């Protein structure tokens, strides 16, 4: 199954009856609303570790911005929604390189509507980057918030959990980021360059999906829809 970018909403993927397209970068495009959704950007995660003594490469923010910019160019959305944990911590802004900050400002300006969704423990994005800040937003039949709600919530798209899925075959296993969904609600993969992941079989997902969710797994060249029962836990 390959990417199909069209404005007619003629996509083989759907969520709660709404036509969507998962992007290999980890973004989700909603055709009707012309909205591009990204979750858990975690800007300045690398420098957060550097501050604590582990000198990870300072390129993660730049890499994340590049991929974000590519996705925006590809889908030409009317609205971009950043689904929480956009900045790794409160002081992230202070550590961001000027060039990256400028890039982010232009990116926000390049789109008609930019929405920063913030969760309860989320650092609020600094005003200088523009956009509007909301705790959640409605997109037709879809509700977008940062942390997924317990119990069945049809139409909810959330982030925060950084889902990964693991599949076995040919005597070995593959583990990759994924969109976790049961067809009516979804948890987005983390978009940020250095973000790790949590296996969808982990108990943290149990309050959200009644049974093990399916996974739209992000491979190197394509996105693969795999049924929940074929997924395996992290040992």
């Amino acid at each position, binding site marked *: *199954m390959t990417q199909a970018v069209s404005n007619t909403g003629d996509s083989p993927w759907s969520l709660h009856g709404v036509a969507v397209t998962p992007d290999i970068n980890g973004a989700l495009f909603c055709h009707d609303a012309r909205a591009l959704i990204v979750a858990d950007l975690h800007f300045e*995660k690398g*420098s957060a*570790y*550097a*501050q604590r*003594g*582990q*000198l*990870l*490469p*300072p*390129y*993660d923010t*730049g*890499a994340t911005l590049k991929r974000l910019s590519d996705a925006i160019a590809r889908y030409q959305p009317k609205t971009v929604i950043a689904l929480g944990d956009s900045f790794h911590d409160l002081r992230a802004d202070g*550590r961001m*390189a000027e060039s990256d900050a400028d890039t982010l400002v232009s990116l926000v300006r390049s789109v008609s509507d930019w929405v920063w969704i913030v969760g309860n423990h989320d650092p609020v994005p600094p005003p200088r980057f523009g956009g509007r800040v909301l705790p959640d937003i409605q997109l037709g039949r879809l509700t977008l918030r940062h942390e997924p709600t317990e119990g069945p919530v049809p139409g909810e798209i959330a982030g925060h959990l950084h889902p990964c899925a693991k*599949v*076995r*075959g*040919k*005597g*070995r*296993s*593959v583990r*990759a980021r994924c969109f976790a969904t049961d067809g009516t609600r979804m948890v987005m993969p983390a978009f940020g*360059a*250095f*973000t*790790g992941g949590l296996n969808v079989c982990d108990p943290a997902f149990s309050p959200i999906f009644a049974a093990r969710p399916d996974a739209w*797994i992000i*491979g*190197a*060249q*394509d996105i*693969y*829809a*795999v*049924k929940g029962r*074929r997924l*395996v836990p*992290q*040992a």
Partner: protein
Amino acid sequence: MTKSTALPSRFERWFASKGWQARDHQLEMLAAARAGEDALLIAPTGGGKTLGGFLPSLVDLADMISNSSATRPYALHTLYLSPLKALSVDVARNLTLPADEMELGVRIETRTGDTPASKKKRQRERPPDILLTTPEQLALFVASPNAERYFCDLKRIIIDEIHALAPQKRGDLLSLGLATLNQWAPQACRAGLSATVADEGGLARWLVPQTNSKAARFARIIHGRPGPRPEIEILDSAERIPWAGHSGRHAFGEVYERIKASKMVLVFVNTRAQAEFTFQELWRMNEDGLAIALHHGSLAPEQRRKVEAAMAAGNIKAVVCTSTLDLGIDWGDVDLVIQMGAPKGSARLIQRLGRSNHRLDEPSKALLAPTNRFEHLECQAASEAVAQNKLDGEPLTTGCLDVLAQHVMGRACGEAIAADALYDEIGHAAPYSDMSRMEFDRVFDLAATGGYALASYDRFRRMIKGKDGLWRARDARTAQRHRMNVGTIVESEMVHVRLGGKRMGRRLGQIEAWFIEQLTPGDTFLFAGQVLRFEAMSESDAIVSRTSDDTPKIPSYQGGKFPLSTYLAARVREITHDRSEWPKLPAQVREWLELQGQASRLPQANELLVETFPRAARYYLVCYPFEGRLAHQTLGMLLTRRLERMRMRPMGFVANEYALAVWGLQDLSGVDMNALFDEDMLGDDLDSWLAESPLMKRTFKTCAIIAGLIERRFPGHEKTARQVTFSTDLIYDVLRRHDADHVLLQAARNDAATGLMDVRRLGQALARIKGHIVTEHLTRISPLALPVMLEIGKEAVYGEGHESILADASDALISEAMKQ
């Protein structure tokens, strides 16, 4: 006996009381020490090497102590370093014995990772005369304050098992630590103790501080008396020898008979999985109830100690073991060494043979038991090499950059250092003697700020330059974190195996996390000599239960991790095509080669034979480089990429020690082999493969950990590596894209040359066969191809296969959907 080799009378009396005589090499070591010369002692095991190393120290100390008062001061006289924790403990026993019997009053102590903190503190305050310790402890000293004072009176440094240490990263770190000691105690004399090796000169140089001039410095080389040539027999099995696989099952009956007929036997195997399997099979046929034990590195330490003690007491008939038993420990009365499978190198075989018969006057007896037909050729080549005393071994390479970064940080944690002085200091370490100042500065920067082109990390630097121009660790906490992460051993993540049930049972040992990850509850596998059932994971323990099952469900890969050495590979190539060598081989092996000569052709020593043939709707290309499995795997990766670009649609490949088989949907007989095997595959093709290769990512991760960029242990998070919330793979990707010249990427590429990817060996092979490719287009599979073809299905590899695994899993979705 000259004055320089004269023993003090107390020592003479002691030797006499034992009925011994001091050996020539021991007296020569004494002479060298008295002359202030560094010396490298090369001797087979059991040749009195340990005493040869310590004798000069004991003599010197005896003299010093007899001339001093009862309350003489505490000062470190001799530092003894060895790679194995247990070895130090064992040597202490062997050393303490003569010291006590001669009533010398020498203070001897050990210091390892297991030494309690209180004892370590006391050792710092009141140093012993002789300290027995490990390279990691030395690195910790270097990274601690006030260490210079501790070592300033040092007279001697002894490095044991130097042949095992020097070629590894561990040796690089040790060499740098020695360079620091040379700064603090320039008067200290060095002694290296080594098994027999090919590159004696290389070790003699490694041991000794180098200078700024181009002239290399060497230690005096002293040879212990070689024992009589070992008697090596190759098992000519009456059973049918398998074509492929490494189980050795066909030979176990004969192996058992040999055990019965001997006093004590060591059965060496190449992997833990093989050890478990062999142990289980021998017990199956153990009607005589012989005491057969198991020993490998993943067993719980208490279990290993039990076996070792029983061996020393002579209560064991046979031990099935891996290389954990390889290093110099002196084991009682072994009268036969059996090597299952090929020894992979003549030097390795000789070192293992050293295990048998510690009375040096009688020849060691060894039996090689090849596990498949090709291994017969390997064993033949190895036994001939030993008979001719032809040792193999890779030459020592330049020092690793990640190790240097760790050492630089360590120096700054210990005391304030100047960059110029440090550059000068590391130049005294042989592996780093040719390093340019520019490269040193890059590594220095890596340690201080991560070494990024982007200068944004200046405020996070781990090392700070003071007003005095000297560098120190940023703060005490940073220094503490460095010390917690010292060392070069980055193990694959291990999981404890624990018996479960109503009450938590004991731990049986450790097993690799990736192995447990393959299992689902209910799967059975072989470990610690029993078939266990995997029940569940509990934190970092794999909970298992005992079963009465005979056979485990999950097999383990049994081939070794070391490839056939280049020297042996060349010999095997010769044996293969030279009919005059064949009479030495068993009839089954001769017949195989004969058939190959008839059906296709025998590969000549200086050419590459490539065969193509169709089979069951697939087309095969099989080539015979004889360069070892690792280099062949790399070649397979690169060839399939090329074939893909040529639109030949390759589907997979499989490799063994001497051959590589590639298959696809298109007839490969028309391919231009000269173009396919061109050396230029080591350029862009290699680069782009390294970008995605999990092996390369693993190599990078190891470098990042050793260099201190990523911590494997930080305070409060000692539990499991899984709690780290970033992935080094992501870091590798980002670094490749944004900072391709980063020094850590350079370090990883250097490792790739000789490590799991064996790129250098592949490069040499491709250069050698250029213009010498010979092709045979066959209509069916050839005899020589049979063993590698039998590997297909056991371990299918294509690219890394990830995409196809995902595709398969999702296709199941489609077919499920279609059924509705």
